[in-house]
């Protein structure tokens, strides 16, 4: 409890009257001291009772169903004074970091009568894709006489998951009509075969048959059009896996890897759905599946994907290069070691080794955990149906899991596409490149070339993705077989 200016004045006056009573031996002067102190004690006791009786109930609501980064969110905070005493207060809604108030005010100053409600309405602009936690309200209560004040907080804990920038969604809508993963003509190097076909027989061409079903080789030999007939035909289901591991979440300067991955996932799923391919999304971390949505072609599948991607974890500040030295990757059996210079590096190394240990204990099918386990379940659950697996990962903690998954896909006849979020490209350093750093990056490049070779041997497609790579260019790369 703090004493306000009026309270201090009253207290000092009591002391002055006491002093005057002693200096000019006068009882009336001395008696003024208990009078003023008595009023202070009365006011303090009254205020303390009010503070103890205070009971505020906060209810926060937002009018936006899916808030997007950079877009204003209309917030409404209803504050109910459920206590028997009115509250003279200054209330401030504590806004989370990376947010700013765009319109209105997050403060309220005045009296809230007993058992009544007041509302603070304002507009907030979140700058990043993140789950924002509202800690609550800062409450500064003042007593009726302006002598004391008491500061406390009303805890709330409301969470608002803010999605990626709306520009990403607009880009997804824009490219959905233009780009597609399927190749309409003939190509020897199709990276993505999007249809599951089983050849049955040939028949004469009939007007209306699709050009891709015509046997063009026979046309050159027999000079007659024949159409290939399939017994089973269906679009391959596609599952996009977004790696949300610790290294993906670590944010350096510039665009973060996870944010870019979420954007890519959003736009790729839109491209697939617009081409009438069933698409699903799964968010995975080192150990488990955070959330997943089965491939489907139902009406609101894209909206469901948008909703689901809101559950992607927030990025955390830090520098993955400081915490992970990938130079000794070639020597290390698990592919990753920490440089050990910093406490953060030691923590990261400890974390990765713990994750590896879990993998060794829980899964005999593969070296990694999380991703390969999920893919194994997906492929075995689909029986004979082919699947298209797209993995968006930086391959730091999930490298082994991705390799194991590629092997599994090869065995099951499914396709795999790895969009490698290339870690070194996401770190924009202000200082010139030093020799040690350049060597580390070169080491990484060699290591990842090795991974690429292994993946290609297993029939998987591989694309390195940097912060400047847009979905449209990635889709074109895949379509023209350059992946």
């Amino acid at each position, binding site marked *: *409890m703090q004493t306000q200016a*009026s309270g201090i*004045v*009253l207290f000092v*006056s009591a002391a002055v*009257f*006491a002093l005057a*009573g*002693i200096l000019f*031996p*006068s*009882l*009336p*002067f*001395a*008696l*003024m*001291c*208990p*009078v*003023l*102190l*008595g*009023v*202070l*004690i*009365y*006011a*303090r*006791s*009254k205020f*303390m*009772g*009010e*503070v*103890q*009786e205070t009971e505020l109930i906060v209810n926060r609501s937002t009018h936006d169903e899916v808030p997007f980064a950079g877009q204003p969110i209309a917030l409404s905070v209803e504050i109910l004074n459920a206590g*028997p*005493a*009115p509250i003279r207060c200054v209330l401030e809604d504590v806004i989370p970091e990376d947010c700013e108030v765009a319109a209105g005010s997050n403060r309220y100053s005045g009296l809230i*009568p*007993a058992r009544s409600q007041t509302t603070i309405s304002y507009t907030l602009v979140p700058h990043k894709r993140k789950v924002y936690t509202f800690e609550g309200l800062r409450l500064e209560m003042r007593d*009726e*006489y*302006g*002598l004391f004040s*008491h500061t406390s907080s009303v805890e709330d804990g409301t969470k608002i998951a803010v999605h990626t920038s709306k520009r990403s969604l607009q880009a997804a809508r824009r490219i959905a009509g233009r780009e597609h993963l399927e190749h309409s003509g003939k190509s020897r190097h199709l990276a993505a075969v999007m249809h599951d076909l089983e050849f049955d027989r040939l028949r004469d061409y009939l007007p209306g048959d699709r050009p891709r079903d015509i046997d063009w080789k026979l046309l050159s030999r027999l000079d007659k059009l024949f159409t290939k007939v399939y017994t089973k035909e269906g679009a391959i289901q596609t599952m996009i896996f977004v790696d949300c591991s610790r290294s993906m979440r670590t944010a350096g300067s510039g665009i973060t890897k996870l944010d870019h991955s979420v954007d890519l996932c959003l736009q790729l799923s839109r491209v697939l759905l617009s081409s009438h391919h069933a698409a699903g999304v799964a968010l995975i971390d080192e150990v488990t599946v955070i959330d997943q949505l089965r491939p489907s072609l139902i009406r609101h599948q894209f909206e469901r994907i948008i909703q689901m991607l809101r559950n992607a974890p927030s990025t955390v500040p830090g520098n993955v290069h400081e915490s992970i030295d990938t130079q000794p990757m070639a020597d290390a059996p698990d592919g990753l070691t920490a440089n050990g210079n910093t406490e953060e590096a030691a923590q990261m190394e400890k974390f990765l080794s713990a994750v590896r240990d879990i993998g060794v204990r829980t899964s005999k099918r593969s070296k990694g955990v999380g991703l390969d386990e999920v893919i194994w379940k997906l492929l075995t659950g689909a029986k004979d149906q082919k699947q298209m697996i797209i993995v968006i990962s930086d391959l730091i903690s999930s490298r082994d899991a991705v390799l194991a998954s590629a092997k599994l896909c090869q065995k099951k006849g499914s396709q795999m596409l790895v969009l490698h979020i290339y870690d070194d490209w996401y770190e924009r350093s202000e200082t010139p490149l030093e020799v040690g750093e350049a060597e580390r990056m070169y080491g990484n490049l060699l290591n990842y070339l090795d991974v690429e070779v292994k993946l290609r041997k297993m029939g998987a497609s591989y694309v390195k993705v940097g912060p400047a790579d847009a979905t449209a260019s990635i889709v074109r790369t895949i379509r023209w077989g350059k992946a």
Partner: protein
Amino acid sequence: MNRFRMRMLLMFSTSIIAILVFSRMSSYSLFVLAFGALIMLIAFASYYRPAGLFGLFIVAISATMSMQIDTLIETGPMIAVAVGMLIPMTLLTLFALSSESDGENGYFQRRPVFLGAAYIGCCLLSVAVVIAITGLVFPHMSLRFYGLMEISILLMVSAVLAIALTSRDPE
């Protein structure tokens, strides 16, 4: 003007009358009291608490200077000081502090009223109680209490009680 402010004004005028009745005012003191009271009234009308406090101190100085009491161990002066100074000055302080208030909050607590009244009462009776205790503990001791000793006892008791009553903070 609402009922609360009307009541406050009534309280103010009663207090001023009580001070005037129980004190021996010179024309100079009377002028100072009137000036202080006027400032308090203006502050109350203009919802300005600092001016109200300023007026209160002027009234307090005037009232204390014109109050003639020498001891707190006799009932006559004690009642006179309680009715003519302690109660009116307490009410005037509350009046000055309520300058910016526009109404009662409808939440009455007994404890603060009891604590405030008990504190002032204890301070007023402190000298008499100390003398009574001394007489009981040391019955053969002959003590003479001077005015300064009474002031010292009063201030000491008021300080100790104030510290004891304000030591608790809200949870």
